[in-house]
């Protein structure tokens, strides 16, 4: 990037220093400043992640003791106890949401990438619909479920929460599935065609298995996202007791709303348990994210050959 400095109109001076001067020097300084700014910005983002994670670990570690995961919260709030019922509730709600969302999302993705042509109107409409669905604030989805399920049944339920989370998950899973289906080599499909295999068979036996790693990755990421969603559950499933329950159609304890209620109460006695819950939740979500990324990198490499 350096060049020989010389002033306009003067003959070339071989003894002039080889460092930039004048205009070029100014341009290089500006460029250097821009680069340093960019590095600083990246550092700020990583620092924010580190700071939040560190603070949550620091505050949560003191709450984590043996039994934190296998005891229920105390009956009337206050200190002590664990988060067993919350964890079980969140697991059930999120798992059922996944059971509802993943098949629908994968079918939509299959339609868009396997059945519809490149200029298909239906596929375009579906894409628009998924985009819009993803753009709806989660609290609005919560209110939708409130009107659709909670109000008619007159009670909060894990079921209502699952439906809301499923709506959040569908566009995420559909998009990632579509992306990975696009990576499956055309030659695989053509080979299957050449053997006279029916299309549905070749989709189920050739295309989907080849894309399975990516589909699982997308589903894990969507589940991780849903596990931390609070707003829909606050609306649809927040009037639960401290006890362990497996009744999906009744109010179910769950981690995010418990954290919110504890932090909202401004009663510091409830904080340690909330921090412990936050730590468990954050650890699970970040681990799921890292795991999904590794899995995706692997299956991508495999598809690329």
């Amino acid at each position, binding site marked *: *990037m350096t060049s020989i400095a010389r002033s306009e109109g003067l003959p070339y001076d071989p003894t002039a220093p080889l460092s930039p001067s004048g205009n070029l020097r100014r341009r290089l300084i500006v460029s250097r400043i821009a680069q340093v700014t960019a590095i600083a910005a990246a550092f700020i983002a990583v620092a924010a992640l580190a700071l939040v994670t560190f603070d949550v670990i620091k505050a949560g570690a003191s709450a984590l003791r043996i039994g934190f995961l296998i005891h229920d919260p105390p009956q009337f709030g206050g200190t002590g106890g664990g988060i067993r019922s919350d964890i079980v509730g969140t697991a059930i709600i999120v798992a059922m949401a996944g059971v509802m969302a993943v098949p629908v999302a994968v079918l939509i993705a299959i339609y868009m990438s396997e059945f519809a042509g490149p200029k298909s109107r239906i596929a375009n409409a579906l894409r628009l619909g998924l985009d819009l669905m993803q753009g709806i604030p989660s609290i609005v989805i919560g209110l939708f479920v409130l009107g659709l399920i909670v109000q008619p049944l007159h009670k909060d339920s894990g079921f209502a929460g699952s439906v809301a989370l499923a709506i959040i998950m569908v566009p995420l899973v559909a998009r990632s599935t579509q992306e990975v289906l696009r990576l499956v080599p055309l030659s695989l499909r053509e080979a299957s065609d050449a053997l006279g295999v029916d299309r549905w068979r070749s989709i189920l036996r050739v295309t989907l298995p080849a894309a399975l790693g990516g589909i699982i990755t997308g589903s894990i990421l969507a589940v991780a996202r849903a596990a931390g969603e609070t707003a829909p559950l606050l609306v649809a499933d927040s009037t639960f007791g401290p006890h362990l329950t497996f009744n999906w159609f009744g109010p179910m304890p769950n981690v995010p709303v418990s954290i919110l209620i504890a932090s909202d109460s401004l009663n510091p006695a409830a904080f340690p348990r909330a921090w412990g819950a936050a730590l468990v939740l954050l650890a699970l979500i970040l681990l799921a994210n890292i795991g999904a990324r590794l899995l995706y990198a692997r299956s991508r490499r495999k598809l690329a050959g």
Partner: protein
Amino acid sequence: MSASAARKNRVKAFIADRRATERSRGDQILRALCIGAGLLAAAVLVEIAYQIISGAAPAISKFGLGFLWHSEWAPNLNEFGAGVPLYGTAVTSVLAMLIAVPLSLAIALYLAMLAPGPVRAAVGPLVEMLAAIPSVILGFWGLIYLAPYVHTHVEPFLHDTLGFLGIFGAPQTTGLSTFTAGLILTVMIVPIIASLSRDLFLTVPRELTEGAEALGATRWEVIRGVVLPSTISGVAAATTLGLGRALGESIAVLSVIGTAAQIHKSVFETGNTMAARIANDIQYPVSKLQVHSIFYLALILLVFGIATNLLARAVARRYDIHRAF
């Protein structure tokens, strides 16, 4: 270029071929299932709009459009208006965008253009993982750690240096404020805008950037002269999507904004946003009309969500950017 065109032609011929072949029963069933799934998604969308509108209908007929600027929210007087949370939503979102857009673009440029390979492979996922932190944890963290810090360090500084602007008033008793909410929103939307923009910057053809470098352009001049102009519409779309997220975030904002009942000029005082107002009031509504008014707020949010999304699509499509969207 030609390879991808050839591939496209192959895909076209392939699909036409498949159309021509007779469909077996299994094909028909799978196709019907797929279409059924699509219809289900469409039905859910319509049903969402219907539920929100019908839930809001009584409030709409009582307050009309005046709801939008009426600034009273008094459940015991049965008076409701969206003025305060609308204002708060605008201020927090503007604050967040002012900080987040330059920051995310700088991050995206670093990841796409400047970072050496291993750093890029490590930092990119880390930035994206910032988006994975649940909003409730971010809100709790903001309440316990960020707000006190902002209160004791950032607010006095901004008040002393920029206090003449009026919006940076004297620090209040706690750090719960519109300003803190804006910061939390920044943390939430930076990863979104940054990762979308990075993907866009990576699609800028190497011939262009290398050509500029061969002509003697510095790194910054390549970015300003080639990379940004050729991706500006995509960046605008990514920014709009980030804005949509900021407008609709409820839980994290609820934790740190202090749920004010009236508009404060200073961003260091408490405020309120529509999503936070919904999340706060839906827990203990005192009257039917309050629930309907909450649905009215949700309807406004729904319109915002759809509008930002359509806007982002329109911007991206207008300049024919199909790369990241």
